[in-house]
């Protein structure tokens, strides 16, 4: 029997689901290996019986949390889809300020006090609320990686997400290193799997697939000096998707993958 798959969205632009909808003819291949029972972007039908839940978006409110727990309890497998779900992504930018301040800045004097839709807390990634089995990283996700994860699950194997940085793929693409062009790129510390798409088009990596390792402060400072880069540029790159991996006071703290 084909596994039953359902898509869900929380705080996000829904662009990652759109990437899947954009498979176009390949959708036919997809439904040959799975039964899509819920996918709001492309179908009206909905079922609460599913094996695999694919969740897009960040968790911002108690009501989100409640809904997510329900999804988790129904699904055998839960996949976090896209940066908002996997690492919190751009939704976490606001976590650097107290939530009350953020609400005041955005909604000014609007009367939202008892409205549960506006009852927000600091942004969480999906795995900060429920256990996540597999991750499809990126902002947006790459269709190739989505296909890899789905085919792996259909073949009964554990999807393998790269555990090495973007530089590996960027080097294979033979790009001119953006540091040499005076740009700060997060490729050396960001999880690969995107095929180094941004640096290959001349745009520095923003770290949307999450930070793998944080190099020590001294090393980063040396780097900035060597390539004549500013601390501000590095900070703005880091704050985009990885607000919590970067402390503006201490810079990047020493945390190592290889050293336990």
């Amino acid at each position: 029997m084909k596994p039953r798959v359902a898509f869900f969205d929380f705080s996000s632009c829904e662009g990652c689901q759109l990437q899947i909808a954009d498979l176009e003819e390949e959708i036919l291949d997809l439904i040959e290996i799975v039964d899509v029972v819920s996918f709001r972007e492309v179908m009206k039908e909905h079922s609460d019986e599913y094996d695999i839940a694919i969740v897009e978006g960040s968790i911002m409110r108690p009501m989100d949390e409640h809904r997510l727990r329900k999804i988790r309890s129904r699904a055998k497998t839960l996949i976090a889809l896209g940066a908002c779900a996997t690492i919190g992504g751009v939704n976490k930018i606001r976590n650097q300020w107290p939530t009350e301040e953020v609400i005041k800045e955005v909604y000014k004097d609007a009367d939202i006090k008892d409205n549960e839709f506006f009852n927000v807390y600091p942004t969480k990634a999906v795995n900060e609320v429920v256990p996540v089995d597999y991750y499809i990283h990126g902002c947006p996700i790459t269709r190739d990686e989505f296909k890899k994860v789905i085919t792996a699950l259909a073949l009964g194997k554990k999807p393998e997400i790269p555990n090495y940085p973007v530089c590996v793929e960027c080097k294979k693409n033979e790009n001119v290193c953006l540091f040499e062009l005076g740009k700060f790129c997060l490729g050396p510390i960001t999880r690969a799997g995107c095929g180094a798409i941004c640096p290959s088009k001349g745009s520095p990596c923003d770290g949307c697939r999450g930070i793998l390792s944080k190099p020590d402060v001294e090393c980063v400072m040396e780097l900035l000096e060597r390539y004549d880069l500013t601390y501000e540029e590095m900070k703005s790159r880091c704050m985009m998707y990885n607000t919590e991996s970067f402390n503006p006071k201490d810079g990047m703290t020493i945390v190592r993958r290889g050293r336990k």
Partner: protein
Amino acid sequence: MKKTKDIRIITKNEFKNFVNNMIKDEYYNVIGVKEKGIKYVFDSLENADDLRLDYDVTILPPKKYFLPQYEKMMDFNLRESFNVKKDNSIKPMILLGVHPYDIIAIQQTDKLYLDAQKDDFYKKRRDNIIIIGVDIQKISPKSFAGSMKTHVTDFGFDLMITNLEDKYAITIGSEKGRTLLEKHGKTKSADSTDVKKIREIRKKILSQYTRELKVPKEEWSNVLAANYNHPIWEKRSQKCMECSSCTMVCPTCYCYDVVDDVSLDLKEGSRIRTWDGCLIRDFTKIGSGEVFRDDISKRYRHRFYRKGNYLPERYGFVACVGCGRCGTACLPNIADPCDVINDLSHFERSEDTSRFFIKQKSKVDEKGVIHVPRSATIKRAEKLTENEMFFEIELDDHKKLGHKPGQFVEVSIFGVGEAPISVSSGSSSKLSFDLVVRRVGNVTSRLFKMKPGDKIGIRGPFGNGFDVKNFEKKHLLLSSGGLGIAPMRSLIQYVLDPNNRKKYKDITILYGAKQPNALLFLDEVKEWSKVHNVKCEITVDECAESDCWTGCTGLITTLYPKIKLDRYDSENTIAVIIGPPVVYKYIIKCLETLGIQDGNIYVSLERRMKCGVGKCGHCQINGVYVCKEGPVFNYNQIKDLPEAFE
């Protein structure tokens, strides 16, 4: 220097025609050095005007045409039980503008991929590439090729171009090159002034290098042999970002990973090999999740030892050509071999350069078909425990596997991947062979769902098995921990075979498992102990009250004091250990107490044996390939290898 008749002169205009004629020749793909932003790359050449022979260095070496970043090895069809096709299409290629250091790097890769165990994919590409070199006109700031004596070369090319300002000299390196030049270029012969000029130009190149090695390359091996525990590795690796850029851009790095790519409808797929790097943490990760060489300082050190000690000891050349690419690519600036070796220059040298390497012959498949698995059928599949399963396998060509006890095979399931599994049966007269699989990774989990009649792929047998000849006329003391009983069973079956039994003296089989329900082959153990002068002792680490276990409880080490020393005259005893990495040092201590010499102890080690033929680099213990020189080792040979029992 070649003789004058092998040097041709071509005007700059005619050279352009020569290049354009080659481009027009549809028999070839012409690849040349072109600009890419502020850098240079080897890329498809459409017009001679795009060619930049005055480049300093390319971002990636020409390695990408011999061992492509992503190389399709074979296509498979998942709708059928076993359908695999090797990709054979290759268009001949002309590589135009290769610098001498890169030519020397290609020569090294040739040695690794074409000597002994030939790599059929590499060979096919190599045979179809014509190399047109060019003498260096501009030195890359990070290069130290002068110190490595790789700034010029007299061999390894089909043609070699030297810029004589108003014209080019073309040195002919092969008949292939001569034919190509005669077909497409209008040249005249060189005179003695030209020859003199070429010599001067090459001499001048050397004087232009600003970076210099303080340790000649011939001494790298000595320096590294003495400084394995030097603080430099820990200190410099603190800054490492673990991005493996250094290995990606290296012309002499050749390690690879293999992945299966499947179409979304699961009908077909391809097996692809892609560059891998030893700085990446998962490089050594095995099915059960264990990572060897986990610490970044050890991975950082490994790269330099591979370049400067392990490969030089094995093949006789330093696997660095001084191109400076890694130094350019490394953001924290710690990857440059010139810096590292110079930092070590005033430290000790050791004459014992081969201390991280063992010399051992290994079986070579002369046919060179080493990557495509053979079709095989599961004859019998039995669940032994919750997580272990037994398989009897027969090759579909109805040939015997022909293995020695202790060897392993690569089990291949298309769409999922490959896993190294020890053969668990002795090399008896029957056609089939046995495997025991523990459910840990993708391949083994998939095997768990398979049943008799299902098809799998088999490569091998690989590696060195037990030296059963050397065991003759000796007592045998065989210790297995956990799943170690599976490969040990191949040795036990062999020595207990009625045809072989009389060659060996007393046999003691010691076997320990975590708990009673983890013990495998208990019925067989009972049968083994019935054979004359064979004794079996079993123990479990722990035993729940609910378990029905009347045997011994305690670690396997508790069994050794029970062995009667008088029966075990230690000089005539061979001890074999197979178990999880943690047990080795404890058992070895017990054996030493019994007075068994290190040279009479054999062990079988587990690492990530991905290719099985000593190419992909994943299973290395210092300078030793476990897949080739192992998995069975004499303890004396490897006890001093720092990475063996970490």
